């Protein structure tokens, strides 16, 4: 579903991503682990066509994102690290606006409220302005937007950053549910624990290079930590 083929990005003299080869199958949760500047966000930016690759390709559903940037976005949802919404609009209005941008998709208010409920947003917050939302609540709206798309792939950038353990856990459950429905998920994160808990496979990145890929079921938490620190040193 998501495939990177020799994907490379160079900013001037700085090589941000070096010949990344990666494939995320439907129903799989691939966690990209790495320190700041490892190339995780660059990878996501390339899949979203926010930047052009220096070389290589990023494919979504077999289509090169560079050749069809708008078309490929139909197949992928995205939840950034900080889900920033329009302050003067309510959660429902934000959802209605963003889902309105998806061609061929039209939800009634009832359906939108249902999406928010499913994402875990309290009912009373639905018609409240977003400027009063907590980070967790904004992320729930982000989840609802992602769910509304019915996309085949999901890109997550540091999704649990700043969330309390309960919110983080709730988020993981949502991810698991989406994965069970066949969504291919690529998650960039620092959170080793969450990566092991939610992921199918883990990739460790450093300095733009994907150093190692391993299956979550084949490694324990402490082993993962050791391996991660080994690559970071």
């Amino acid at each position, binding site marked *: 579903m998501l495939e990177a083929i020799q994907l490379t990005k160079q900013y001037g003299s700085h090589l941000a991503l070096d010949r990344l080869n990666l494939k995320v199958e439907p129903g799989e949760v691939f966690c990209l682990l790495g320190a700041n500047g490892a190339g995780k966000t660059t990878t996501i*930016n390339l899949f*979203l066509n*926010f*930047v*052009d690759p220096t070389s290589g390709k990023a494919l979504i559903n077999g289509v090169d994102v560079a050749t069809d940037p*708008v*078309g*490929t*976005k*139909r197949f*992928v*949802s*995205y939840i*950034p690290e*900080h*889900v*920033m*919404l*329009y*302050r*003067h*609009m309510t959660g429902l*209005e934000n959802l209605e*606006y*963003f889902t*309105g*941008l*998806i*061609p061929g998709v039209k939800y009634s208010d009832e359906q939108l409220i249902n999406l928010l409920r499913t994402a875990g947003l309290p009912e009373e917050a639905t018609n409240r302005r977003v400027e009063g939302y907590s980070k967790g609540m904004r992320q729930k709206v*982000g989840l609802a*937007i992602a769910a509304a798309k019915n996309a085949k792939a999901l*890109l997550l950038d540091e999704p649990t950053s700043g969330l309390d353990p309960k919110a983080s856990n709730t988020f993981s459950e949502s991810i698991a549910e989406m994965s069970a429905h066949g969504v291919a998920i690529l998650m960039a994160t620092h959170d080793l624990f969450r990566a092991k808990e939610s992921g199918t496979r883990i990739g460790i990145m450093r300095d733009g290079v994907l150093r190692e890929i391993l299956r979550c079921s084949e490694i324990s938490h402490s082993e993962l930590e050791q391996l991660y620190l080994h690559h970071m040193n």
Partner: protein
Amino acid sequence: MFLREWKFFYKLPIFWIVLAVSWLSLGLGGWNGYKRWSSQVTQARLLNQQFEATLARRQESLSKIEKAFASGHPETIRPSNLIWGVTQPQFISANDPPVSVLPAAPLGFLATGRSDTLPRSYTSSAFRGLEPNAPTTDDPVALLIGDFDLKFVVLAILPLILVLSCFDLLATEREDGTLRLLLSQPTSFRRLLLYRASVRGVLVGVSLLVTIVALAFAVYLASGFIWTGRLAVYTTVSEAYLAFWLLAAVGVNLLGRSGTSNSLLLGGTWAIMVIFLPGMTPVLAEAISPTPSRALYIDLARAARLEFYNAAPDEQGRKLQEQTMLAAFFKRHPEWAKEPNRQSLYLASKGEEFNLEVEKITKQFDAAREHQDKISASISVFSVTATVDQILTAISGNSDARQATFLRQSLKFFSRQKEYFWPRIFRNEVFRTSQFVEIPRFAFTEPSTQEVFQPLLPLGLVFGAWCASLTIITLWQLRRKPIL
């Protein structure tokens, strides 16, 4: 997508500010313009009515005299009235000189232009020539500040509204963090940006259109006529000017700078284009091509007046003066050489010599002024606002060009006065009541469409070049990815 962006914009506080300021300023500018136009229509009518009322009074006096003669009782007529009174064509021409009045410009309700500074009426006395009749008396402070007409709203306020509502089209999204989420949706960023900008543009543009149509309808109801073709051009140029500013805002947003930088850049551009460059234009034009001041003109004209009207100190000198002047006059007008009224002929000769001398002075001044105007016009092209200002003023009719046409027609009218009164004066004819209707009346002929639009072609090209350049730059910028 347009509707969705409209609904999005509608929820923002800036929407209400844009709406309120647009409608208030358009309403006030339009109403003000209509009132001024209406006042000019009334003034023109009043001046003509005053002239006709005065003539009617003279006609009544003359009628009494004629009846006295007809009834065989000329002793009832006061002798003074026969020596210098309504029976003499010179009396009528000197005391009740016909007026030429500039009517309100056809689209004058759209732009005050020069109508509040330049003379709108002349008197044409057969001997004294053309003289300004009713100067504008507008409060000088009001003239300094400038009229709040529709043109001012179009040139200054609406672009400011567009700048202030569009400076953060992308910058806010970027700073608030919603840009990434937005661009991750399957929608073209270019379309999104253009639709977002066009929503604001449409709000302002449609408000302007509605105002112009409403004004035109009000004028049509008042006058029974409206120049639809010119109105359409005025509207098109105004909307194009607003589109220019909208495009500028889009272009600045695409630079990827912060909202603060965008507002400084766009606000600074507005200040330079709308205020500073037009304000500096006369400074630079005067420095490059100084014109002699009107004080000098008055001085030379007054010197000429004294020269031709001041009598020689002695009898012999005065006789020589009269002979010389009459000789020159008869050389120009041999047809009057044998006429009996020497006193009037002498007066006419002095008047004509004076007018000819003043004409020479006026030509020099006008040439210097025209040259400076050309320099001003050249400098003005650096400001799109100054360029469009000239175009809109010309189309509205309240421009120097229409004023010049009025002066030319007034001068022709003066010639007709001479043609009518001179024979009667020089032949000592007695004026009759039936002749009052024969006195030429002034009727202004509006410049043709070609006369109005042909001089605007270079300005149109300049404006077109501004729009084309900005469009090319913006389109080129649109090809780049948005800076996140």
